């Protein structure tokens, strides 16, 4: 465990990619496969279901610290992270006296803890806190609360593994996709020489598009992308990105978040059985009506997170898989073929596939002016904008600039007034970073959205000071502030909602800019909000 704690510390204490890479390599090369497997599990952002409720943990932390409960709560509010607070209040400066390796920790302590009744959990955790040095205690607590985040990208971890195992990185990335257990066997297979075989349920790493500036003019597009005839243009669908795998005897649907969702979309699964073995499609899961086409994302959302899909839901919200790429064909990895070649094969394949598996149509665009015009149709068509793929682009791993671009429509914007602020969590505890914004209705502000992102660090610090000096009232951690600061909010869509006081729910709100030039009375009104396109739907 000490070695993993050291690795965590090394990664946490530098922003240099090279130093991180070196630390990862040296860790993987020096620990047994059992530890490496678990380390990889956590480094790739996987985590346990929370084993101990936060309320229990807080109770035990109070007990272990020997301090009044209110003082522990004040301390927690100042630190902003439960795991860290517990370590700071209980961890010792003496060296750790529980000497388990990482895998022993997981198997002899953590997994056992998960099966124990609360009173035994309590005894076990109090014993940890008594015997662990600060670094180990912090890490164990982070595992306990399921909040361990390590500042390394998936790609960097894969690079370190690829370097250590002397394998191409795409091989490692592919082997890391999908479900796996952190066993020594898994780790050994991961770094075994490439024999071309991969677990047949495993998806390919997704190829990602880079964003194009939303305000781009046709002239700018020409400068950046060149001749429009070299590009394939299609709609940017607003659904769930997924890979559909048809393998001998089985079908799998994987989302971009590497979730296996095959059974949630039985109509897609059934249609996929009609595809030949050894086929992998890349596309978008959409709620789709044969009469009107794509339905808003909010409708699709109703099918998300449902374990069982009832008949009514199947009927009310029909699904289609809008395919736009072919990653595997006749059992062959197609990623090194050009987009044109892949699309031609995909087109042929889907000809006999039936209505659930659709082909994302190409837009015939001969100039960037024309592309800009089509892009403007997006909102009416309930799509997010355009996708531009170079005709000769390969199917790359991750986000490689220059091959695939997403050109999203300009979002809606509203000028709103800040009403409330509360501190963030983790590294933003102590700083007011979570804001509530309102619009006018009869001389009163009505909350319309909460937003957390979009300001620079300097602006956040400045605003933090302003908030502290202009607080009207406090409600626990929340402060209401003088209605003086105007912010332009951007958001993707707006829908009617009976659950919100304002009568609308906005999708993905964020701060576009701090409008110091505007007086609060210049901010928008609720009537302005209701007049935005989209408020009629859903």
């Amino acid at each position: 465990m000490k070695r993993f704690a050291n690795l965590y510390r090394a990664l946490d204490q530098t922003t240099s990619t090279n130093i991180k890479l070196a630390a990862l390599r040296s860790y993987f090369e020096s620990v047994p496969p059992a530890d490496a497997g678990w380390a990889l599990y956590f480094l790739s952002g996987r985590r346990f279901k929370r084993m101990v409720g936060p309320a229990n943990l807080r109770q035990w932390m109070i007990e272990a610290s020997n301090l009044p409960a209110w003082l522990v709560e004040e301390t927690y509010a100042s630190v902003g992270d439960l795991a860290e607070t517990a370590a700071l209040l209980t961890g010792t400066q003496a060296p750790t006296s529980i000497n388990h390796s990482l895998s022993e920790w997981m198997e002899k302590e953590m997994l056992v803890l998960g099966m124990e009744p609360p009173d035994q959990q309590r005894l076990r955790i109090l014993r940890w806190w008594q015997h662990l040095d600060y670094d180990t205690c912090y890490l164990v607590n982070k595992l306990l609360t399921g909040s361990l985040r390590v500042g390394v990208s998936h790609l960097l971890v894969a690079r370190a593994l690829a370097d250590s195992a002397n394998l191409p990185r795409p091989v490692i990335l592919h082997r890391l996709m999908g479900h796996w257990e952190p066993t020594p066997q898994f780790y050994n297979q991961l770094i075994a020489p490439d024999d071309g075989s991969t677990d047949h349920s495993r998806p390919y790493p997704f190829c990602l598009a880079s964003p194009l500036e939303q305000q781009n003019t046709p002239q700018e597009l020409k400068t950046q992308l060149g001749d429009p005839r070299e590009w394939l243009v299609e709609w940017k669908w607003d659904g769930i990105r997924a890979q559909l795998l048809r393998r001998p005897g089985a079908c799998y649907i994987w989302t971009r978040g590497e979730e296996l969702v095959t059974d949630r979309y039985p109509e897609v699964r059934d249609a996929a059985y009609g595809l030949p073995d050894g086929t992998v499609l890349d596309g978008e899961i959409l709620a789709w009506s044969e009469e009107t086409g794509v339905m808003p994302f909010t409708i699709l959302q109703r099918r998300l997170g449902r374990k069982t899909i009832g008949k009514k839901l199947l009927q009310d919200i029909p699904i289609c898989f809008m395919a736009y790429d072919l990653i595997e064909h006749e059992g062959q990895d197609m990623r090194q073929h050009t987009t044109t070649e892949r699309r031609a094969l995909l087109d042929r394949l889907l000809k006999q596939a039936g209505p659930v598996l659709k082909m994302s149509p190409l837009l015939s665009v001969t100039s960037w002016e024309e592309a800009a015009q089509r892009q403007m149709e997006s909102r009416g068509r309930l799509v997010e904008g355009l996708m531009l793929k170079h005709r000769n682009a390969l199917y790359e791993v991750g986000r490689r600039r220059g091959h695939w671009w997403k050109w999203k429509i300009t979002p809606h914007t509203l000028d709103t007034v800040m009403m409330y602020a509360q501190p963030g969590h983790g590294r933003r505890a102590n700083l007011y970073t979570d804001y509530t914004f309102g619009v006018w209705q009869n001389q009163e502000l009505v909350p319309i959205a909460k937003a957390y992102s979009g300001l620079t660090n300097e602006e956040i610090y400045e605003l933090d000071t302003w908030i502290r000096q202009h607080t009207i009232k406090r409600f626990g951690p929340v402060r209401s502030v003088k209605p003086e600061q105007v912010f332009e909010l951007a958001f993707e869509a707006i829908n009617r909602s009976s659950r919100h006081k304002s009568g609308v729910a906005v999708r993905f709100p964020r701060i576009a800019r701090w409008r110091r030039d505007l007086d609060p009375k210049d901010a928008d009104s609720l009537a302005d909000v209701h007049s935005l396109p989209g408020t009629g739907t859903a």
Partner: protein
Amino acid sequence: MTSFAPETALIKMTPNGLYCPQGRFYIDPVRGPVERAVITHGHADHARNVAETYFTTFGSSPILQKRLSNDISLHTVSYSEPFTLGETTVSLHPAGHILGSAQVRVEHQGEVWVVTGDFKRDHDPTCQPFEVVPCDTLISEATFALPIYRWPPAGQVARDILAWWDENIELHQVSVLFCYALGKAQRVLAELKKLTDRKVLLHGAILPIVDIYREAGIPMVPTEKIDLQHKRDYAGEMILAPPSALGSPWMRRFKGAQTGFCSGWMRVRGNRRRRGYDRGFVLSDHADWPSLLQTFDDSQASRIQLHHGYSDILVRYLEELGVDAISLGSPFADLETV
């Protein structure tokens, strides 16, 4: 028992700072103009150019002259040497915060009040150790008054700093260690002196204070001001700089520098991450939670008055223990940010 009412208090908080009416002097006034000021130490939030006459220790006087002006009217006293101000007898006692730092003991008609100023109980080779001064009322700072603030031994922190330097030498990178120019920087140099004789480079803001400390006979590792005229490769060097230099154009000449910060705040990860330092070294010149409680106990004071930092929290904690405690607030309260 003397009354606790503010009108009879020996020292009270005013918009200008702590004031003693019976002695007609301020302690560390933040605004002015005022007539007489007793200065606990030379940090900018304590020694401000607002008084006609200053009273301070021998150790602090060159710092005040450097930071305020050579022309200020300055009365310098030794530790424990009593002097009269108005109807009160005043003496200054070591606070262990930085070179020359003092607690202020004020006696009036047999009643004794002590203002700790900024203080710490941990060992520090650059200044005299904190002296316990018994009193009736103790006015203390509460900068780090949360139970998570417990300091590791400074010697251990110095070894961590040296190990970090070594790592960066191995990586062929420059180490830039940020610390307050007055006090912290010299403490780091003095702690390092116990471990090594390697030369440390100094940002221009730190150099004059290091000179003052050398003059006072504090042993520190060799230092040299960074020569900005000539471009050179700083790989493997250790540079001390004030926190204000982070993110300034000055930093641009140290490409790929590994950065560290020495402060008690570094005990909390978020504080380090938010400011963008690679490394945080927990080294504070203030009292930690256990030291605060220890000091209140040692002073035998029947009343504790707190200012700065987490005063309100510590007051509530003391009250629950049955201690007579209040928070004085801070004259800076309206300006304070995290």
